[in-house]
């Protein structure tokens, strides 16, 4: 059973230099309150594993949206992502040399995280064959030919922390994601040593129909009640 903690407790357990997976796509599905608290913590040197750098402006008028806050506050020293074009600060910090950015094809990125969580030795994907991705020594184990077709063997991805957002989270930690917020959170919840879920709504165990649970509570270590936590 997961432990229910406050925003402050969640931030406190994340040390400087941690590798952190954050669910979300252009901010949609980022755990906004945890990220906001982390962005004000003064901690940094993070390795951020997130699909993208979100964007400066958020849909509810936020000045910086989701993980863009961590980037704006220069808390990220290394970013592993698939697309960073819509947050110009990523490019700026990269060109300054203050941030390393590694770009991975999105389908491979998702599957590498799944492989990390599912005990697989890697992912054999045709994506990236013949491109400079083949040369990403940190992420590509080898190029292999199987039954006449070439594949890249991409290494599994893991992290110290996964920060996930769930619309409904029950007392047993089971997560139900709304709309398009599920994206990478589902895989990340399996691939990190410590998984913290921000719950938009905490519900009783059993309130999510057992068939409709998307991430089993066994993957979840901590739940932050995002609703109560920040009013």
């Amino acid at each position, binding site marked *: 059973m997961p432990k229910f903690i406050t925003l402050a407790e969640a931030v406190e357990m994340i040390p400087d230099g941690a590798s952190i997976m954050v669910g979300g*796509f*252009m*901010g*949609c599905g980022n755990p906004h309150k945890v990220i906001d608290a982390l962005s004000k913590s003064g901690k940094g040197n993070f390795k951020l594993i997130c*699909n*993208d750098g979100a*964007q400066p402006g958020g*849909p*509810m008028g936020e000045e910086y949206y989701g993980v863009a806050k961590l980037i704006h506050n220069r808390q990220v020293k290394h970013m592993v*992502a*698939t*697309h*960073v*074009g*819509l947050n110009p600060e990523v*490019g700026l910090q*990269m060109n300054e040399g203050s941030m390393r*950015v590694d*770009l991975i*094809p*999105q*389908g*491979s*990125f*998702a*599957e590498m995280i*799944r492989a990390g969580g599912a005990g697989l030795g890697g992912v054999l*994907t*045709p*994506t*990236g*064959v*013949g*491109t*400079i*991705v083949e040369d990403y020594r940190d992420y590509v184990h080898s190029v292999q030919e199987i039954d006449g077709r070439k594949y890249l063997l991409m290494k599994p991805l893991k992290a110290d922390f996964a920060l996930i957002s769930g*619309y409904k989270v029950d007392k047993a930690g089971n997560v139900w*994601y*709304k*709309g*398009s*917020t*599920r*994206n*990478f*959170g*589902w*895989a990340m919840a399996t691939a990190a040593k410590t998984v913290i879920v921000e719950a938009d709504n905490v519900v009783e165990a059993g309130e999510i129909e057992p068939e409709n649970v*998307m991430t089993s509570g066994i993957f979840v270590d901590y739940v932050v009640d995002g609703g109560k936590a920040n009013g």
Partner: protein
Amino acid sequence: MDKENIKSYIIARAAKELKDGDIVNLGIGMPTMIPNYLPEGVEVTIQAENGLMGVVPCTKESYDPVYKVDAGATPVTVAPGGCYFDSCTSFGMIRGGHIDVTVLGALEVDEKGSISNWIIPGKKLPGMGGAMDLVVGAKRVIVTMEHTQKGEPKILKNCRLPLTAINCVDLIITEMGVMEVTDAGLVLSEINPEFTPEQVQGATEATLIVSPNLKPMA
């Protein structure tokens, strides 16, 4: 044609490539406008790689930008019969050949059907996002783009920018014509009546094979 006319001319032509019932992924920019140009009787199902099937524009009531956006971060929703899923499932669909057509833009395409559309070294590092998976996995890959960039050809003998994927493009649609990627090379199968085949070739680095059945683009 001005910029806007060029765009709508290209998109209108691309829309005719889609068949009723197709499952389609549309790249950011021009391709997202295709649904507005579909011929009567043609309905397609739109996938967004961030985990939506059956994407439709949202109404005032369904507007829910914190929870429901497409791959361009535009607030959208799904039609009845659509669904949401995670990114592994989404790219399983894409890589596994379950998407009938993807339409996307390009910086360069070459006569082998290779494409570059994700990075300009030293200038732009947007990232490949889902593009590398889409062009490798979709059953049919259609590139829509302006024929040239500041007067320079974008259809080359060999792509010069870092590749998105090799040998994957099936069709190129520009404001000058429609080109099929074949084993023999690029075949100009339709032409904008404003241009001659010589003019199209003049704006193209790759060698164009003019189809014996060359038709007016429409």
